[in-house]
């Protein structure tokens, strides 16, 4: 099950957002409402599963092209 973990710093300004179980860019799309509510994201780092899904999509594309 996809999960969003928000950790709030006591400075009242910084919120760390971590996502688990999302694949590809869907995590950015499905958690955008939090950025709208809490403020704009900075220092966004994509985890390996983001790239894994993109790599998988490319592999699928390659297989289709071969047919």
């Amino acid at each position: 099950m996809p999960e969003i973990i928000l950790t709030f710093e006591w400075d009242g300004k910084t919120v760390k957002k971590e996502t688990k179980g999302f694949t590809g860019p869907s995590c950015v799309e499905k958690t955008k409402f939090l950025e709208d509510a809490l403020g704009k994201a900075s220092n966004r780092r994509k985890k390996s599963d983001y790239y894994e899904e993109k790599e998988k999509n490319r592999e699928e594309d390659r297989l289709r092209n071969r047919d």
Partner: protein
Amino acid sequence: MSHYVDIETNICDGEALVRALERVGFKGQVEVHEIAQALYGYQGDRRQQKANIILRREHVGSASNDIGFELMESGRYRSHISEFDQSKYGQEWQDKLNTYYGVEKAKKEYEVRNIKYEEDVDEKERPRLRAFL
């Protein structure tokens, strides 16, 4: 007479602000007004500042003035906290309030979307929300 220090905050959701104020010790003590109301000083003197969300001085402390949050045209709230009360409700308190505001704002967003969540603290005692989509 202690002057008020007026600061425009990034707070824009009154309901989440009320919940945050309750979490920092003012449960059942927060006044909410659609039309901004006057703040009063520790001697009962009416001050020129007005606010939509108010902590009356009897809840703030002895010899304290009202604390208020006024909704601005920008959609954000401006805090009114007297110089006298800055000693207890200064930057550290305001940072804590802003932190809890963020927590309560995020919880509201989840509730609107029927997203289940759990609240706890991490190993550094920072508030943490885990939501399950």
